[in-house]
């Protein structure tokens, strides 16, 4: 398990990370979301040891992470980087060798990964001759080629088309299912919502919300869609704690106060005619993200 404990990092007058803590469990994909400059990349660099935190610690399997343990992390940095003029296969073999894989095994692992990522026919091509999406796949392959114990991926979906995103998520899910913790950051909240087991929202270097997608969306206001063709305006007025959010033809979006019972709303609706829909409205992660960003949960 990877634990980040009370990380703080300053760059001059800017506090990039402020008492940041979270953990990522084996077999879990943890999505790390936040606005530009929120501290995602800094956090990942601290985990990798590329940057040093001013205080706090990174714990791996119960003890402070060592350089040897960090070498077992598969990493995709925000700024992609591979050798443009090296062939794909030579590149992967090099990264495997850097992680101590012997020559033959490095070659075998590289070939196997390229087949898995659908790039076997490009093995002998120079990296710079590949499309952007394929270069991204090679970047992922470079992070996986030495069978890492943990994956840290900064914006792995950036610039990928939907098919490539699916291929990438399949690979990540397989890695997580093999028992590895996977941490990724992304701006694409719909993908994060779909792929990640747990999500952390970071703002100004602080974790402002974290939990499973379901847990996070529970935090939203209690709202129900009710489709009652027979009802007229203000039909819900008799139920205490109910206010109208939106009306769309015969469909009504009602917000309930904490102590108001949704069964009372349903019973009232049934008295007015057949109810075609009665559904809890859960805010999308995007909505939640906006709420958090603009909300009061953030202090400067």
């Amino acid at each position, binding site marked *: 398990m990877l634990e980040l404990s009370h990380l703080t990092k300053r760059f001059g007058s800017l506090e990039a990370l402020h008492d940041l803590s979270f953990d990522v469990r084996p077999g879990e994909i943890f999505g790390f979301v936040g606005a530009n400059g929120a501290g995602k990349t800094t956090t990942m660099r601290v985990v990798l040891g590329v940057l040093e935190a001013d205080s706090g610690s990174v714990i791996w399997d119960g003890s402070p992470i060592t350089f040897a343990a960090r070498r077992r992390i598969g990493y995709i940095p925000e*700024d992609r980087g591979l050798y443009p003029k090296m062939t794909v296969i030579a590149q992967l073999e090099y990264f495997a060798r850097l992680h101590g894989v012997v020559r033959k095994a490095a070659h075998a692992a590289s070939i196997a990964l390229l087949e898995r990522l659908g790039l076997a026919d490009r093995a002998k091509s120079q990296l710079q001759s590949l499309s952007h999406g394929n270069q991204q796949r090679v970047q992922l392959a470079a992070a996986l080629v030495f069978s890492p114990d943990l994956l840290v991926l900064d914006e792995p979906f950036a610039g990928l088309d939907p098919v490539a995103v699916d291929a990438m998520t399949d690979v990540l899910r397989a890695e997580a299912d093999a028992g590895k913790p996977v941490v990724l950051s992304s701006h694409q909240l719909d993908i994060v919502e779909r792929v990640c087991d747990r999500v952390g929202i970071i703002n100004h270097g602080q974790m402002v919300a974290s939990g499973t997608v379901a847990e996070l969306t529970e935090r939203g206001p209690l709202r129900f869609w009710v489709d009652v063709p027979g009802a007229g305006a203000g039909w819900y007025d008799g139920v205490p704690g109910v206010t109208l959010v939106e009306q769309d033809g015969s469909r009504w979006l009602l917000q309930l106060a904490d102590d108001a019972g949704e069964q009372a709303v349903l019973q009232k609706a049934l008295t007015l005619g057949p109810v075609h829909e009665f559904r809890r409205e859960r805010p999308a992660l995007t909505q939640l993200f906006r709420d958090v960003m603009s909300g009061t949960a953030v202090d400067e």
Partner: protein
Amino acid sequence: MNSQALIRVIATREFMTRIRTRVFVITTALTVIAIGGYILLQAYVFNTSTSSLEVGFVGAAQSISAPVRAEAAGFGETINVRPYTSAAAGKADVQSGTLDALVSGSGAGTTMMVQSKVNLTLETVLNDVVRGRVLDQYLTKHRLPPSDVDGQLAFSVSVNELSPVNAARVEQIVIGLLVAGVLYVTMVIYGQLVAAGVIEEKSNRIVEILLATVRPWQLMLGKITGIGLVALVQVVLIAGVALVLASATKLVSIPTLGIDVVISGVVWFVLGYLMYALLYAAAGSMVSRQEDVASVALPVTLMLVAGWIIALTVAAPDPGSPATSVFSFIPLFSPVIMPVRIAAGLAPFWQVAISVVLVIATIYILVAIAGRIYRNSVLRIGGRVKLSDALGLSSSGKPVV
């Protein structure tokens, strides 16, 4: 995985990708061809002194052909004697160029016929031999045995050179300068390649993945080692071809190029390259764009140029001077000045040993300092990193990564 194995993997990649580039293959081939061509040109076109002279002797002059040939051989000139019975036939051969000179007559009436320019050695030898003949005849006529006179003259003026110029010493100094010059050029070229290679990894952003895997100093040493091996291969190829051709055409006598000079050349190459490559790597890490490599590498290059100028102006004219000795102990200058002293045979072993130790100590210090600059600079993409930031002396400033 230990550091050595890691550095070997990094160096192997550098070596293999660079040695296979078209640039390397073409520049090496062109240099070998240029140097080989120059040596062959020297040996067979410009250098006519090694060929022999065809000299014809007609009539009475035939009696002096043997002593002329013998004395000319003493001056290193080979003469092929061709007897003629007719002066006209000899003249025809001189005119057609198959004969270099035709000697006729005897005593004060001796004549040498040439096409346009007389060979000075031949003229001196001929005068000497003919005058000797005339003198012998004169002495015999006056009843003085020529051998007695020869005995009286069997001496030469003793010359007392206050500051003698040793011809062999001059050749040694030239060879020392050649060794130093090759080291100097190689360090400048390959040092800048190290700086460019560091910047390449910065501008490719690959350095972030690498630094998540290896220590900065391991990355730096791996790169320096790989590029250094490429330089070594190139120098050995070029120098090897030059030496083989030069000795095959007898242009240079290999014995003057002692084995100690060759070994010390290799040692100084390794030490000097390491020292300067570290400086170039540190300089390169401080900028992010290839355009900036020249400006940031300039101070390092200037140190090398300064050393080379001292080698040319101080060490070469007087390799035994105290100034030369002092400069040869300054680690940044040792690699280009010590080889001159060593080749001139003027560097006692203990002095060479001390300067080697000083350079190795400098390399150790540079590994620490350059490694520190490299570590603090290599992730800062954007403008030029201030030296104080690179050395980690000030903690302010956000890395623009």
